[in-house]
């Protein structure tokens, strides 16, 4: 299973890296968000770290690519004609779907590289994480957690034909609720418990605290806990929808 997951993530990552659309989303859009944040943070009255803005823009894009990709993942397999083969294989379907959503989140590696380079070259933002080792550990933890959230989204939106559009429209609310560029203290109190349930909150916290100082280990731990919880929920949803689709023989229907 581990070999399958690792190979699956690598294969999907290579496929996505060949896609102009996905690469544009992964490498260009974080620059848009980071640039806006740099200018606003610099001219605002509240002192905010520009390195923090880079990380926020990275996690925003990580979720954006994963959210849209995951919402569309099952539909895409159906369109390619591979959905029936995947479901019919002896491997649990969840083990085949999870690498796809994790690979989408892993495109965040490109986002991080482009954002840090952009910030360094154009805005002179130093890249000097306080805990370099933990920073390196935080990145895959964030990718895993966000990828598994994508898996949960994918498993719940199977029957919604315009899932990609819905996934797209949910970008901003999730960016807001997870405190990527906006401190959670500015948001209404009821948003905070919601943020605890969302992986980008912990992914961002892990990256932020390893980069700017603090103790990232609890956040890394929460990334793993939320990942496990998302996987369990996704397994339930996928099992249910797989049974429904088998009963109705609707796997190949677009």
């Amino acid at each position, binding site marked *: 299973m581990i070999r399958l997951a690792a190979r699956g993530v690598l294969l999907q990552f290579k496929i996505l890296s060949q896609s102009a659309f996905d690469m544009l989303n992964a490498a*260009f859009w974080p620059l*848009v968000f980071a640039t806006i944040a740099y200018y606003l943070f610099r001219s605002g*009255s509240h002192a905010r770290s520009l390195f923090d803005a880079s990380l926020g823009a990275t996690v925003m894009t990580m979720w954006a690519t994963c959210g849209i990709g995951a919402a569309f993942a099952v539909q895409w397999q159906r369109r390619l004609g591979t959905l029936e083969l995947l479901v019919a294989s002896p491997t649990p379907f969840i083990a085949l779907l999870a690498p796809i959503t994790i690979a989408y989140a892993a495109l965040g590696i490109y986002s991080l590289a482009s954002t840090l380079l952009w910030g360094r070259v154009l805005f002179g933002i130093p890249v000097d994480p306080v805990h370099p080792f933990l920073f390196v550990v935080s990145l895959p933890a964030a990718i895993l957690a966000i990828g598994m959230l994508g898996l949960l989204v994918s498993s719940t939106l199977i029957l919604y034909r315009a899932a990609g559009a819905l996934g797209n429209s949910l970008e901003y609310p999730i960016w807001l609720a997870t405190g990527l560029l*906006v401190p959670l203290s500015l*948001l209404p109190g009821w948003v905070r418990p919601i943020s605890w349930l969302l992986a980008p909150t912990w992914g961002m916290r892990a990256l932020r605290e390893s980069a700017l100082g603090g103790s990232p280990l609890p956040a890394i731990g929460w990334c793993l806990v939320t990942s496990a919880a998302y996987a369990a929920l996704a397994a339930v949803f996928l099992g249910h929808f797989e049974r429904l689709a088998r009963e109705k023989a609707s796997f190949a229907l677009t």
Partner: protein
Amino acid sequence: MNWLRVFFVGGLTSYRALFRWLNPWVYVPLMLLYPLFQIVFFAYVGRGAGLGSDRFFLIGNALATIAVACLFGMGQVIGNERWFMTLPALLSSPASRLALFLGRSLPTMLNGIFVCAFALTTGSLVLGVDLPLGAAGGLALAILACAFSCTAFGMWFGALGLRGRNVGILANLIDGIMLVVCGVNVPLRDLPGWVQTVANGLPLTHGIGAARRVVAGASVGSVGHALTMEVVVGLVYFVVGVGLLHVFELEGRRTASLEAF
């Protein structure tokens, strides 16, 4: 008479057939909710940075939704002819090209105006921003001018759809650049001089500036120059866009690439 029929009936029919986001399951999340969420998000980013002007972000982002509706709209209503394999049939018809393609731009423009008005109204309600009633006329003119210039710019993407496979990627790229340089979220004066020069040649820049000044209490007359500039920018894009449509059609015929992917 036939020109008008192709323009109005053909334009509307093509728009309904080719603008794939008209499906309510797509339209509501992408054209209504997404702009509203965008406005709220950037208003909060502004609050977090200590800028504290929700009105600035409301107007900038609401007018920016016109670009999304018009750039992607025009890209789809012409470019999708290729995807649906109807491009050769369309271009072999004797109908006036101007009527064919301009007819598609009118619904695109109206959609941009509607989406912007919706975003402005709901955004002001959610953020509690007061938009003075006296500014309605000036705001409407700014929206109209931006819708015209963005639709004209969108004709470029439609024209590219006659040659390229996926103009959505390019529209996505340009949309991101406009979000940074056109004064949507970052005041123009904060940007480097050369970026301001580029921004002055892009749709939205003058219209957003005019809308902000009108809402701040300026008279329509005092923003007349900015509104005129927005229309002039649109006219330039329009003329070049029509030229591109013509050139790419000829090129597509010459290279027999109208059906190529």
